[in-house]
Structure formats: C-alpha cells, structure tokens
C-alpha cells in the first residue's frame, strides 16, 4: 500500500511499523521502525507521559524522513 501510494501520488510516503523485514519486502522506501505490533506509534504500557514522548519522537523522525533525499530503501533509526 505504501509503495503504491508513493507511485500513484508521486509524493514521499514514510511507513512506521514494527517488523522491518516486511516493510523492506513490500517495497516501502522510507521506513521508521515502530515500537510494538499492537502500538507502533506509542508506548502506552509505560504511562501517558512516556507514550506521548515516544509518539512525538517517532513522528519527528518520520517528518525528517519525508525531508530527506534518498536513492534507495532507507531505514531511519534515529
């Protein structure tokens, strides 16, 4: 889905999910590793404050990915 949106719209798509090998297989170009399968963009088990902080960090990383020129599939770990 990520790949086809990018192809159809011609705009950068950053995918956030937990199992990185699957994102590489399906052809996502900009990849941000998520926290856990049931909560990719949060850490609700660590309390509200940490949860929001983690979500913010991941989204800021995603925004950075959107602004980064890449030539091939890239994993944004930080």
């Amino acid at each position, binding site marked *: *889905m*990520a*790949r*086809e*949106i*990018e*192809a*159809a*719209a*011609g*705009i*950068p*798509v*950053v*995918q*956030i*999910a*937990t*199992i990185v*090998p*699957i*994102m590489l*297989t*399906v*052809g*996502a*170009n*900009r990849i941000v590793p*998520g926290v*856990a*399968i*049931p*909560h*990719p*963009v*949060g850490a*609700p*088990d660590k309390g509200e404050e940490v*949860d*929001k902080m983690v*979500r*913010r960090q*991941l*989204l*800021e990383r*995603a*925004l950075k990915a*959107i*602004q*980064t*020129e*890449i*030539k*091939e*599939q*890239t994993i944004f770990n930080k």
Partner: protein
Amino acid sequence: MVAYRVVCYINQFFAGMGGEEAAHQEPFAKGEPIGPAAQINSLLGEDAQVVGTVVCGDSYYGENMEAAREKCMELIKSFSPDLLIAGPAFNAGRYGVACGDICAITGELLGIPTVTGMYCENPGVELYSTKTFIVKTADSARGMKEALENMARLGLKLLKKQEMGPAEEEGYFHRGIRKNFFYEENGAKRAVDMLLKKLKGEPFKTEYEMPVFKRVPPAKPVKDIRKATIALVSSGGIVPKGNPDKIRVSSAESYGRYDISGIDDLTPEIFESIHGGYDRVWANEDPDVVLPVDVMRQLEKEGVFGKLYDYVYTTTGTGTSVANAERFGEEIGEELKKAGVDAVILTST
C-alpha cells in the same frame, strides 16, 4: 532402527493458548507433540517421531527477533533433532516470518534440514524461501490437512536423503537453486519451440524465471515542511466507532476515508480498532497509539509542519491480499494527489 527425531515449531494459537491476547507468549518447549505437531507425528509413521514442540507467540517473535531466535534455538537444540518442521503459517504474516526465521537459523547452526509451509503471499516466502523448504499451502487453516501431509512427506524425504525433484513437482517454493542436467534437444531448438508456443498463445514454461521485486523509485523529499500538507494513512484498522463502512476485520476488501478536521485526539468514544490481527486492548484504550492524530495535531499547532490533511484513510492489513492492498494504495494515492497532499505517514501493525 532408531526413528529420526523431529522437533516442531508452532505459535501460541496452534498451541491452544489463545489468539492475540497470548501473542506475547515467550518461547517454551514441551517434550511431546502439541496441536498440529500431533498430526505430523502420525503422518511421519514409524520412521520418525516428534520428540518435542517449541512454542512462541507471534508478536513476541516479531518484536524481539534476536532474543526469540536465540531462545527458540536453545530449546530446539536441547532435543537433538534431525529435522525441524515449523508451522504451517498459511497467510499469517508474523507467524510466517517467525517460521521462516527459525528454520533458516536452525538449518544454518545445526546443519539439519528444515521444512515449513506458507501461502504464496505470506511475506515469509520472499524472505526465507532460499533458506528452507517452504511447502505451498492454502491461505488459511482450511488447508491444514493437505499442508501437513505435504510437509511430512517432504520432511521424510529430506531425512532419508532421497533425491529432491524440481520445486514445482515437490510442492515447495523454489529456493533459487538450479541443477544442471541434459536435455535431448539443444538450447536453440528449445528456445524456438518456446517462442512458437508463445506466438500461438499456448502455455509454455521458461527455463529461467526472472525474480519479481516490485519497487518504486523513492519520491523527492518535501522541500518546505512548514508549508506541507501531510496525510495519515493506516493499515492498523482504526475506524470511527461502529465501523460505518463495515471494513472486514481481516482479508479486507475495502478501506475507509474519515474526516478528522476538528479532532485533536482520537478517544475510545469516537474511534476504535477493528483489526483482527493484533491484540486491540491498547488501541481501543487510545487509538492514537496506532493512528497518531493527537501528536500530529500538536506538531501542526506548533508549526512544525503546515497542515494535517482533513481525512485519514484506514483499512485492516491482516490476511489482506497483495492485489487488494495495491489497489487501495493506487486509489488512495490518486486521491491524495488531487487533494494536493505533499507527503504521507503510513502506520502499520
């Protein structure tokens, strides 16, 4: 003669422990066949015996790959097996990756043959088909009987070191291995025969299959993030409460487009998760942990980026066919382009 020793690997579901609520189960082993392993044991007959079953939750494996791999390896090794049979995983993505991964590492470290089973669209196929024998199965447990029969048959063949025929005949996904053998007719004749068949529209079989890796060139980055409109898309199954478009909980054939203008936070009162492929407890307490509207809104207000697009697109990405997922992507992409959206953040579970 002493029977060959076989170890089976299965997930929490097939061990009878439960579905998503038990998916974080840490690896453990029992010195007996459990679940499908019992059927494998009887299919193997007198020549081989299932001496142990290793069980691990799918989410645990997916989220802690190195630790899970190490622990499962240890458990498998403790049974001194001659063969590992994992799954079958059908079209379950996390389970398929776990089965493929444990087979690959077991083959590498213990030097024993390994067999698993998956549906052709399982991501585990592309990742691991060269590192283990993956038997072709149906997309769901309805195909259990046939899958187990084929896995047991292939397993016995590997144990007895019988000659392995071509992947297509043996019923597994080809492992990228080519064997040399002699044809009566030379290459030029065979190529012309193939061409003639192609011209007549008759079926023909290539001798050199090309791998299919769908890739798209990365789009250009966004230049001015402060003016950019960003859309949220998710395959994590977050929908307005009541699931107004009746999106299926798995094997989705549709997606929804939902207005989030004026919404600062996804609360359990207005949104919920209908995804049938993960434990929904956290997502139902706070849907933002899957579809992060709250923090995106905050970043928008702080001026970190221009505007959060007024609509989110969501579907459930579990057991969903690749063809459908591609269609959703194309349609969503077209709409976002028309709407002038500059970039997408897509979350998946």
